[in-house]
């Protein structure tokens, strides 16, 4: 039994694994909106700052 069988098996498994991840991503709607995330990613800093403040506030009510 040559090592190539093991390598092939592993490579096919890795490939199929990524393929399944792709299918799940499509299913979750990741490809439905390709524009908003590109804007959203730039908000992160402000969001984090505000969220910490807010989380304290919202816990009280």
């Amino acid at each position, binding site marked *: 039994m040559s090592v190539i069988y093991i390598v092939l098996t592993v490579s096919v498994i890795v490939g199929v694994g990524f393929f399944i991840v792709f299918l799940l991503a499509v*299913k979750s709607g990741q490809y439905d909106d390709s524009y*908003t995330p590109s804007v959203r990613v730039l908000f992160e800093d*402000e969001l984090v700052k*505000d969220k910490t*403040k807010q989380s304290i506030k919202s816990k009280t009510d």
Partner: protein
Amino acid sequence: MKDSTCFHCGDKCGENPIRFQEKSFCCNGCKTVFEIFSENDLTCYYDLQNAPGSVPKEIEGKYDFLSQDNIVDKLTEFRSESVEIATLYIPHIHCSSCIWILENLNKLNPNISDSIVNFGKKTVRVTYDPAKTSLKEVVLLLSSIGYEPYISLDDFKSVQKQVNRSLIYKLGVAGFGFGNIMFLSFPEYFEVNEFWLEQYKHMFRWIMFALSVPIVFYSAQDYFVSAYKGLKARLLNIDVPIALGISVLFIRSTAEIAFDLGSGFFDSLAGLVFFLLVGKFFQQKTYAFLSFERDYKSYFPIAITKINKDGSEESIQVYDIKKGDRLLIRNEELIPVDGVLINGRGKIDYSFVTGESQAVTKKSGDKVFAGGKQTNGIIELEALKSVEQSYLTQLWSNDVFNKEKDEGFTNITNAISKHFTLIVLGIALVSTTYWLLTDASKAMNVFTAVLIIACPCAIALSAPFTFGNLLRIFGKLKFYIKNASVIERLAHINTIVFDKTGTLTSNKKSQAVYDGEELNTTEALVLKNTLRGSNHPLSRTLYDILEEHDIITLDTFEEYVGKGIEAKHNNTALKIGSADFVGGEREQNALNTTVHISSNNNYKGKYTFYNSYRKGVAKLFNTLKNHFDLVILSGDNEGERNNLKKLLPGKTKLIFNQKPEDKLDYIQYHQSEGAKVLMVGDGLNDAGALAQSDVGIAISEDINVFSPACDAILDASKLKYLDRYLGAAKTAIKIIKWSFALSFIYNVVGLYFAVTGQLAPVIAAILMPLSSISIVIFTTVCTNILGRRLK
């Protein structure tokens, strides 16, 4: 005093801006929104973009219908005890600030757990806790910060539309298979009879086979289906040779590896399907934020306030309105049914319907038609008909709205594929016969090789990439086209029909010409100031047209509904209004709107209103007249005939007094005589004509505001370039023909290898992607050059 702009919405603040925290605001609404944001630490909103907001509208009572369970049921996509999810369409979404504020809704209402914006579709998907808040509260919150959702009758569907993602799946499967097959087949391209390669190549081949099975049976299934449908209809469409090529590739490759004859063509097969699907994907991309399928339902409200016999108000669904019901229409609400005005002063804006922006004044007892928007306080009316039977909505019962325009239209690719398929089959048969006679062992090999190499991948890609790219270029130039086949139909147009009001005329301005004795300075001053106090649409228009004057205080001011205004300042008493009221002569067949003026009971003269045409209309018509038959179909009377005659080239046909159905019939008649008609219109009354025409273009001053169902939406400021767009569509067809010629060269080279029986997998693997990619590059470069010339 310097004019300042509003910190919130960017509008001019006028002479008395509202000052708050060192910032100026144009109105209290904007100030309130700013207050809400600053109290909740959300002023970041203003850092991301300058003046991103919009003025919140008066909404009192407007959303009462959202407390009704059955309506909420239709609007939400998920409902349970503790979670409700609703997707709301918000037309105002336009910048990054919008996304930011809408995704931070939970800071304004902690019961909203999540809100996600889809910028392309201009929607926000809100998740909230129905036990603590409600859809109505969410909508009111959005409205209060200037993001009023648009809820129309169109949302009132029982079935939620499922997103079709099958093309992405197919593309993913094909791409996955293509990549892996390339890796596996690569060693064999350089066949050197190497020991280890000999040892393992069989296994490599069977893995390739396994990878190509889903490509053929899943990713490529559309081509088989379409080819089958084409053959059933006795049509050799482009998918016939493609399906033939794919199946021959698969069968021959499988046979080769099964009988150990060679490595097969799995690489070419996977590449072919992948590239074809990429082309399809490219063509499918369109404008998510525009809808080209709107009918009256998108304009009409879901619910309306009904006044019961005992005087109580109740919110009822629009479909439940019966003849005889008394309805309450608030300011800025749409009238959903034909009815009689009972109470209040109607000032009804029919710009949705006719494109005419001048509001019409109605008094009680007058008939009002569905589709108008009340713009002045509350009115009550009695329904005369149900929604579906109203004057406007009846139009949609016409068959034309159920037809697909693409049906019966042979596109350029299918036109060429007919000849192409026959020629390829001919070559295959001739060469097979030749080889049968000389070397029978090679005959089958040659037959399949011809079909493989002639698979018209490049031809199938030319049109999607050319049209797809042109679609994007047009989009940048504010000409939004529904899909690629519209461009193709646009290239065949020979008759252009225009609507007048709202299409050729501008919504914003009208012109008034004064006719009579000249007014002296004091009279002009008093006139301007009198008009200032009136809310009548004609007064407002005239006020905007007249020169600036100082502001004075009038001694008396009296407005007589439906007649005119009387005002006095020092020694000047002015009467402004209808001929009867002022004391002027009533003209017999006056077609244009006039306003008469008298000073101290001496008749002075009248202002006659004319439409103001968009800039460049005359020039556009003069360029178009050489290539197209031009027609103007107007729903208005003939008042503008002489004006139009002066403006437009002599051979333009002018037809007036056209009802919506007449417009449709006119176009149908000319199509039956062989004309290819382009309809350019704007209002709902053009909807029938837009649907019937070969290509219907809706003109819109603001593309975010709704336009009727059409094939393309053109920004009003770009109407003057219509001739260039039509020219570009024709050039696109030429580009496609050139790329066909280019792909034939590749085919000839490939066929040489195929016919002589020496088609090795490596040659196919090089030729096929090479031809596809070079076609993509050729069409993209050509259309980009074309796009640069358009600017």
